[in-house]
């Protein structure tokens, strides 16, 4: 099982944090490094698997049932998917669209279990959901425009 997925930059600023197991944390966790130390490493069945891309660290905290190579592969798929969805992803994309990153992640990992590793499939689902969202949003915008005109 995957216990947590964290993305932070070279300075330790969190860019995404997703915990699949509850743990108590305080304000100290502003910096991810701290929260890993305080909350996760304590257990015996934990290992941290990470890859470093440009300015970002992608850290997966997993238990012994996961293979290191498998997780590394998964991180690669994750990053490639981000790259595809954001068109040349960079740290700024993650900063401003953390919700989208969460949505993408949700198509790959669900409740700490790996859901899908096929990038094309992930992207298809993300696109379909975005399209659905767009159609809804444009409905709303349209409604507001009409309202504006009335006013």
């Amino acid at each position, binding site marked *: 099982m995957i216990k947590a997925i964290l993305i932070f930059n070279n300075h330790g600023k969190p860019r995404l944090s997703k915990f699949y197991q509850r743990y108590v944390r305080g304000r100290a966790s502003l910096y991810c490094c701290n929260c890993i130390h305080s909350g996760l490493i304590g257990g015996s069945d934990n290992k941290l698997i990470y890859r470093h891309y440009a300015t970002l660290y992608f850290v997966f905290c997993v238990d012994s049932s996961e293979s290191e190579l498998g997780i590394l592969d998964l991180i690669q798929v994750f990053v490639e998917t981000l790259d595809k969805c954001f068109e040349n992803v960079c740290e700024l994309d993650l*900063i401003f669209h953390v919700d989208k990153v969460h949505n993408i992640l949700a198509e790959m990992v669900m409740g700490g279990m790996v859901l899908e590793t096929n990038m094309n499939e992930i992207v298809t689902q993300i696109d379909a959901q975005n399209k659905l969202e767009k159609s809804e949003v444009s409905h709303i915008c349209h409604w507001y425009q009409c309202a504006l005109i009335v006013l």
Partner: protein
Amino acid sequence: MALKMVKGSIDRMFDKNLQDLVRGIRNHKEDEAKYISHCIDEIKQELKQDNIAVKANAVCKLTYLQMLGYDISWAAFNIIEVMSASKFTFKRIGYLAASQCFHEGTDVIMLTTNQIRKDLSSPNQYDTGVALTGLSCFVTPDLARDLANDIMTLMSHTKPYIRKKAVLIMYKVFLKYPESLRPAFPRLKEKLEDPDPGVQSAAVNVICELARRNPKNYLSLAPLFFKLMTSSTNNWVLIKIIKLFGALTPLEPRLGKKLIEPLTNLIHRALDLLYGMVSKKNLMEIVKKLMIHVDKAEGTTYRDELLTKIIDICSQSNYQYITNFEWYISILVELTRLEGTRHGHLIAAQMLDVAIRVKAIRKFAVSQMAMLLDNAHLIASNTQRNGICEVLYAAAWICGEFSEHLEESNQTLEAMLRPKVTTLPGHIQAVYVQNMVKLYASILQQKEQAGEKEAAQEITQLMVDRLPQFVQSADLEVQERASCILQLIKYIQKLQIKEVPVAEEVIALFAGELNPVAPKAQKKVPVPEGLDLDAWINEPPSDSESEDEKPKTIFHDEEQRHSRHRQPEIDEEELARRREVRKQEQANNPFYIKSSPSPQKQYQDTPGVEHIPVVQIDLSVPLKVPGMPMSDQYVKLEEERRHKQKLEKDKKKKKQKKEKKGKHRRHNSLHTESDEDIAPAQHVDIITEEMPENALPSDEDDKDPNDPYKALDIDLDKPLADSEKLPVQRHRNAENLKSPDTEAPLVGKKSKKPKKKEKKRKEKEQEKEKKKEKEKRVTEEGKKKSSKHRKKKHKKEKEEKSKDKKKSKKKHHHGEEEPAESVQNGTLDDEPLPVRSCAALASLGWRGRCTYDIQGNLQNDSQVTVSVIFENKSTSFLKSMELNVLDSLNAKMLRPEGSSVHDGIPVPFQLPPGISNEAQFVFTLQSIVMAQKLKGTLSFIVKNDEGSTHEKLDFKVHFSCASYLITTPCYSDAFAKLLESGDLHMSSIKVDGISISFQHLLAKICFYHHFSVVERVDSCASMYSRSIQGHHVCLLVKKGENSVSVDGKCNDSTLLSNLLDEMKETLSKC
């Protein structure tokens, strides 16, 4: 009242969204906490609103704050409200927030049960999906109990997307509500055979997790998993299954045996990677690791696999990576310990190759081979049908051929004459017999020279005694050679008895060194001057010769006439026909010896070896040939040697440095060893030795002129030359280029030629050509990329994003209708201006090209026209094209009245293959101070012989700030007044490393950024432009030695800074 409410919500619409919040936090680095608490207050206000969109926005922001460590549990109820929104957009935000902050202790969580149940049964699969995802994070025992049944139903949903999520979440349900495991398990098992690989993978995941607890429950599934393992290509699933088997094998030992085969296949793939990995530095280390595996390996197949890999890796590219051949020989000798391998001949071939070609190693090789011969009983002991005994072939030959290097010749000769040898396969015995004579000859010579006559006779006697056992051999070759040699030796014996010195004559039998010859050596021999290989040495005999055997005719005249006639008649065709006939005859003639493969070749793929049944041998005694060197020691030795070399080198360097007064002492310690630094222990100049003298150094003949892939032999690292650039299609304006606006100031004042009044055009060319699959893709990116794209750090090949279509799309733009835009631009002398995009690529990989150009519209201060040229490059007919752009708050596509915002605009034409046409789209903009990027979709129907398909294409239109500018002339006095007015904001940039001429530089600014030159003095120029909304933009451009500084003034500071940023981008490419 109602109106007020609506108005209120509209105001809310322009509240901070997540991006604004993030930006705000970044802008308040000093008082972040204060800013955030202010934001939280705002959020609280927003949450009080009735409008669900506002609430969702607030919750979205809270989710972000939660990541930063702020407690948001107080908003749990609001989160549930957003979760229950009807729109997917909001629902997703709600569930995300819930998954981030809900836990078992959250009391309101029980309120969600019904909502979740409702979502699970929603007709929209994404509603269901998002609910499952959320639930997986905050499922509680209560929720698990209440929803287990619903989820179980979903496991058989029609959509695989739902099925896989349902399967996966079952694990969470089992954890919280273990009672559900037994009833759900049969269905879970079914899912292992689901047609969808995603669902399969999910089921494997769940069962693997479950199997950690009580593996024996899942033993019955082993066959199913075994099937999956052999059929699946999904790495993730494979890893999981292997893990699972790891848990299962202790319970069922028989499983282990079954697993060897598929696992070996996996390892096999990994071994292939080793090829590329090796270098001089790591070869020994890698081979050492492989040798350990060889020792441990259980299956013969796998062991053989490793063996061939070791040899392949070592021998690749002419032993390029071997620095120490002694090491390699000892590796080969160690490999002979492998009983039951099929690859004895491979090892043998390597031994021969190395011993023959590497002269320096011969002494060592011979001593090793002698040892092998001495221990032949170990190698061939168990069965004569043992593949490994092939190495004795090599050993015997090497010992015989290079017998002068042998130290204990007698002992080796005796070893070769042992009775046991007769159990070896015939072809090996034959080599034994032949080579023992060589050995005998050299011993004889030694003894005679030393004057030990008795010893010489003794050795002859030994031969005479032992050879008869070979004479009786059932193998013809062995028998023949042995009897022949026996007679020879008996004759020598007679001479010896007469005390005649014979050694010289015997040794003469094997005189001359056997040199290796490169396969291409013959070709490389230069043709001596004056020799024409094509010329006839003798005139070709006429065919009449063959007729000579015919009974001579009495009609002499006739025959003469015949032969005279015939000669010119023999043409190619005739010859070919005759050759054919001859071949036919030969084929039918059993006495005709047909050409056969060379003996060497025959040996290499001796059919007999392949067919020898491989018998597994139980090697209870570890086979360690006494006195054999272990290759391991070479690894150490090599390290020491390298270390020494390095030290020596360092010493030399130090000396040099001392001379240089040790300026860079630091550097020395940082010296890293590169591949080139490692000098091989033996200098092996294989190639030159094996080539004839005067061999032509050219390697041309290495390349087969008929090689179909020859064209691909291209150095891709070389920078592209101008001539190599792919042709970029430019849009030529066919219309009248004369613009009415002729008074526009000329940019290059010094230009001598009359300037063409060319219509201004900005162009983005990004061309992608994707050839059919498997073909190499060649890409040339447009010269200019939009700034946004370049900022991205992960540089990923764009073409990956393009669909697997053959064509590319290009957008192009220019606006014909507005007179203003025909303002003339700085075309300079003859220098062509690079094509350029004002915007990002529109989209790639379509069945055609699409270029676009954005032009401001003077008549309307908030409109720009985008002209798109569609070009169909496919062979299909394209029709029903519709272009739609997703409006942003700032930019909207102007649609016909009555159509909704998500309606596309139909393109008013169809495109037959190879045709291009242009359509214009008008966009309205609210603010032009910032660049815009709009996303859009082009949908169209592709019609060809096979039918028609509906396709879609996403693209982006980039409105740069420069595209809002319209080149407007300005006189210097007006310009001065403008500057004096003082209500302009000022900003400046400086760009270094500019090498182009100032004139060209100005032209670029004019061209790309729509400015006109007001005045130019030496390397200083003032420029002016106007935005469609009437902003004045003034520039002062100064060129320094290598840099350019641009001071800008504008009514709007944001616009100015954006413009300058864009300009910087352009200039930095100069």
